[in-house]
C-alpha cells in the first residue's frame, strides 16, 4: 500500500486530528493539493493514497473527509464525507456526498473551502485564501 503523509508531523500527534485523504489521479495532483492544505490547516492529518489503496486505508483509520476521483462506495461508513473531484472530467465541480458544487475557475481556495466545511477541523483559522 502506498500512503504518504503530507507533513513531517509525528504520527501519534496526528492520530487525534481529523483525517483527510486524497486519492486523486494523477498522484502529483493529490500531493499538490494535500501538501498545500496541510500547510494551511495544521489541525488536520492530511495524507495521499493511491486510489487502489483507499479502501484499505479507510479500514485502518476512518477519515473525516475523502477526496477521490471516483464515486462513494455503497458500503462506505456514513460518517465519512465524500468529495468526488475529477480534475480532467469535471474540472470545476466537486460533488460532496453526491451534491454537486460548482466553482468557476476552481482554485486552491475553493478546495480549502470544501475541506473547511466538511473536515470537522475545529482549528480552521478562517483567514482568506493564500492567493490573491
Amino acid at each position, binding site marked *: 500500500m502506498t500512503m504518504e503523509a*503530507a*507533513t*513531517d*508531523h509525528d504520527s501519534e500527534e496526528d492520530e487525534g486530528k481529523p483525517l483527510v485523504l486524497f486519492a486523486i*489521479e*494523477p*498522484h*502529483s*495532483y493529490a*500531493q*499538490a*493539493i494535500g*501538501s*498545500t492544505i*496541510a*500547510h*494551511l490547516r*495544521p489541525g488536520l492529518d492530511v495524507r495521499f493514497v493511491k486510489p487502489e489503496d483507499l479502501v484499505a486505508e479507510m479500514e485502518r483509520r476512518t477519515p473525516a473527509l475523502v477526496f477521490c476521483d471516483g464515486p462513494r462506495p455503497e458500503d462506505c461508513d456514513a460518517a465519512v464525507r465524500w468529495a468526488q473531484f475529477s*480534475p*480532467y472530467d469535471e*474540472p470545476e465541480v466537486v460533488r460532496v456526498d453526491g451534491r454537486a458544487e460548482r466553482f468557476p*475557475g*476552481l*482554485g*486552491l481556495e*475553493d*478546495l480549502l473551502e470544501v475541506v473547511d466545511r466538511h473536515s470537522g477541523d475545529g482549528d480552521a483559522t478562517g*483567514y482568506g485564501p*493564500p*492567493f490573491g
Partner: protein
Amino acid sequence: MIRWTPGAVQWLTSVPTKERKPVDRTALMKILMVEDHVFFSQALELVLGRRLSEGLLGLATFHRAATVEEGLRLVAEASPFDLAVVDLMLPDGDGTEVVRKIKAYWPETRVAVLSSIEDLSGALEAGADEAIRKGTGLPEIVARLERLASGEGRTRA
C-alpha cells in the same frame, strides 16, 4: 501573504544547511506557468517558489496562463522568462505551440512541459528542455524544475 506553519511539508521544501549559500534577494527569477488546472498551478507555484527561495536561486515571480492564447500573449508581452512550465493539454489547443514560440524568440528560456499523455516527444522536438509526466510524484517534479531553473541539463521524461 501566505502563513507558513512550522515544520510543514519539510519533505518538499527543506534544503540542508550546508548546501545553502547567500541568496541575492534582488535577483527575481521570472517564471511562466501555462496550466489550465488552476489549483495545480497555484500549488506548484507555492511549493516551487518556496523551494527556490530557500535554495540557491532566490525569489521568483510567477506569471500564469490557463490557455494557449493567454500563454502566447504573455510570451509576447512579458518575456523574457527564466523558466517556463507548460502543460501540453490546454482547453484551446496544444501547449507545444507555446514551447515553439518561446524557443523561437527566447531560446535561453528554459522550458519544461508537463503532461498526462505518454508521448512527449513532440514537445521535446519543439525545443522543450524537460518533459515530465504528471503521474510523476510532486517532489520529483519540483526537483526537476529546480534543477532546470538552476541551468542544469535537459533530461527525458
